[in-house]
């Protein structure tokens, strides 16, 4: 008996669905195993009074994004254009934008 195309397709979709379910299982297991490290990091944030995560180290206003002031992107002179790649990747903190609106 020859195998029909529909059976091959349904089998492939079932395998894909199993892999899909495995993603959620893997995510859940990884979260559980990473929890102690996350707690440890959280403790470190408290003791060292850390205010920002370390994503970018090229510019001070993207390294400590929440601590940036309104003028940080104009590093060289008031007409200087923002020139660090990370500055194009992230948005300014909402409290800075609010501060501009309130003025």
């Amino acid at each position: 008996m020859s195998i029909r195309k529909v059976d091959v397709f349904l089998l492939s979709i079932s395998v894909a669905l199993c892999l899909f379910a495995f993603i959620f299982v893997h995510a859940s297991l990884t979260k559980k195993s990473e929890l102690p490290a996350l707690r440890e990091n959280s403790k470190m944030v408290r003791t060292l009074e850390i205010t920002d995560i370390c994503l970018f180290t090229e510019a001070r206003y993207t390294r400590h994004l929440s601590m940036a002031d309104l003028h940080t992107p104009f590093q060289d002179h008031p007409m200087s254009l923002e020139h660090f790649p990370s500055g194009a990747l992230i948005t300014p903190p909402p409290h800075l934008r609010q501060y501009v609106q309130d003025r």
Partner: protein
Amino acid sequence: MSRIDKHRNILDFALSSLLRRKRKNIALVIMYTSLIFILASVIFFTEAIKREACILLENSPEMIVQKTMAGRHDLIPDNYIRSIESIRGVQSVRGRLWGYYYEPTRRANYTLTVPEHFSYGTGYIAIGKGVSRTLEAGKGDLVPFRAYNGSYVSLEVADVMTAESEIISSDLVLLSEPDFREISGAPGGFFTDLGVRVRNAKELPVIADKIRRVLPDTRPILKNEIVKTYETIFDWRGGIVMVILMSAVFAFVILAWDKATGLSSEEKREIGILKGIGWETSDVLWLKFWEGAVVSLTSFFLGVILAYVHVFLASFILFEPVLKGWSVLYPEFRLVPFIDPFQIMTIFFLTVLPYTAATIVPSWRAATIDPDSVMRL
């Protein structure tokens, strides 16, 4: 024949029909998969960063008070501590010392921080994994720092922080207050900013308001503002994220538009023949639905699974050049996979549904006209 058997037969026919145009459809699946892969990678990455940052920063200081001068962050004198301490509801105020250090030989930027209790004492430092990597320094090594006046201060590495903490500590250099002042030139009696603790967290906005009134040249930053900064860090309106999303959406619009604007004459003739040999309009629509579903489901599963592997198992290697920018010291960390059904549904509704709909509309138009005129095309 049961309904299931009928659909199995139509699906079998749809697969044969897709395989007849093998090259075109494989190219379509590759393109469609790449599109979903990019979208899913961006969604997985940004959500994971946001959630991890928010969990970590829940423990950040309740309030930071900065002094500003001509719109820029300036050193804050210690008499500000007494002014803030006198405000009702304030529990304690601590002067924080931190700053940046540019290492000219490696061209890397480090963050110098003075912890409240630095157990190793003067002459020692504790460094993050990223600093250790760029300096090629480990426990017991001496690291020379060029001070503000040109002299050199050598400090011994007492500890290297764990690789698991790189997301917060990669570029950190922890040191004692005298060493920090010697390197940075920060005068005694001045701090980088102030960390304020309050008795009741609900009073934070009121206390911040009072600080602003008592000390008009200061800027209080609250914990919820720090957390919100990272909740909105990769906003869809922000720069490159928007460029990636818009490119993906436009590519998808072109793909769907191509499908929706009409069928090829070969496809129309096929529909005509099917109707001519007795297929009903609903059967033809089911056939086209299954054709669309096979292509979009295959691409959807492949795209999402590949995106998961890319972001959470391969350390988002394709995004690395964008994230690195010009920085020499780049934190190496693995993200905790914070994925939920909502993200998957968002990707599904953004890609699979419009594509499937786009394949049915032109087929419905072709299936409702006279088979004879379609076959003559």
